[in-house]
């Protein structure tokens, strides 16, 4: 059983989204981090780049495999987490906290999953 905080929203691609006004903080779920194993490399979109929901905008790579980061919503990147680029293992140790990936100024939000819906999706 992995943690799925009730106050976050989720995508079927295993990202989480925390909306605060018009800024969304985005990361990958603990379920995704556990499935990848130890994360050793993160490639994030640059500050200022425009994201289109559903497009591939980065990579999260473990010793064993590569996961793609999908934009969960439309918007512009206002901050990328350099600390997680420097210490990718933070994604494993604190996926919903210090392991956040990007902050996005949201222009439009597609329907996201609730915690319960995401839990059902991953079968936990």
């Amino acid at each position, binding site marked *: 059983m992995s943690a799925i905080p009730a106050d976050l929203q989720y995508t079927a691609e295993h990202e989480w989204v925390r909306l605060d006004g018009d800024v969304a903080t985005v990361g990958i779920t603990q379920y995704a981090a556990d499935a990848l194993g*130890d994360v050793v490399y993160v490639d994030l979109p640059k500050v200022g780049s425009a994201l289109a929901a559903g497009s591939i905008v980065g990579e999260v790579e473990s*010793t*064993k495999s590569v996961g793609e980061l999908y934009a969960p919503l439309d918007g512009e990147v206002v901050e990328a987490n350099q600390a997680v680029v420097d210490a990718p293992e933070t994604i494993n140790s604190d996926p919903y906290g210090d392991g956040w990936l990007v902050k996005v100024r949201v222009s439009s939000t597609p329907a996201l999953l609730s915690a319960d819906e995401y839990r059902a999706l991953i079968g936990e």
Partner: protein
Amino acid sequence: MSEPSHDPAPRYSPLHAVHEALGAAFTDFAGWQMPVRYSSDLAEHHAVRTAAGIFDISHMAEIAVDGPDAAAFLDAALAGRLSAMAVGKAKYSLILTEQGGIVDDLIVYRMADTSYLVVANASNRFAVVDALRERAAGVGGPAFAVELDDRTEQIALIAVQGPASEAVLAATAGLEIPGLTDLKYYAWGSGSFGGSDLMVARTGYTGEDGFELYAPVEHAAALWAALTAAGEPLGLVPCGLAARDTLRLEAGMPLYGHELGTSILPVQAGLGRVVVTDKQVFVGRDAIIAGPPAGAPVLVGLAAKGRRAARAEYPVYQGERLVGEVTSGALSPTLGHPIAMAFVDPAVAEPGTVLDLDVRGTRIPATVVPLPFYKKEA
């Protein structure tokens, strides 16, 4: 990687309940549900390089070969000269197709004058058993007087690997291994655990000192518990297949389905020395002597900078020319930079040659380096 064709039902190690209790994540390997990691595959990898790790590799196949013709049979059926190996020793060998391709790589132990144990990869268990049975009926001559017995389901295989592994075995309650300290690399000895016999071999797949313990399945859980209890104070941790894969890659050891396959001749994979070509008769002989066609790809090591690793099947370029394909790759946990093995055009295989790895559309320069990437200190 092909599934065993004989039985598609999932298989479980005799240690499955132990792994579940330890919270392992599992992966399918050739139809077996095996631990991929317990907590952190990097921590598990580092433990083996600096202290010790314990691995369940019970999915590997053990095939006993017994009979007056056992030595002559294996000389004809396999690539090496197993008749020349002394009792108590182990040898890395290959089983080849008629066309010289690699059916599997094997460890062969000589148990007695007329008795051997052949250890094959889980993914090739039935291919190896079938080939051996077929070859027992004769290789260009009369049938061999041998009995073959697939003991995979009766034998649990536990590997203890890392610089502290001898100390772990020595400290394990109930485990008696006479002559443990003097046991040489690629040799085996008899031991006992809890009143039952077991076989202890100084072999492994990590590039470190280490042992592989072949024990009856009914004693596997107790043996694992005793090894773990003795090993924990020495830094031993349980390790999954993810760590096993990065360890073997750093050590430049091939994996069937990646660096080895039926369309690859041993010499292409750097294993020419494993084949004894002056044997009069062995399966694959003509093709091995003829050799691969000119320009056939050869296996090389590639080292890159940064953190982005090439993975199996990624293309390798020199300029705009496609010159090969990666077979295995990872960010090396020990060395801290990406490493890969790849089959490349022999014209670009010289160490020092700079090639480009195509990592999902980004070209990453990589230098051809000698294998292994990592060698333990003597």
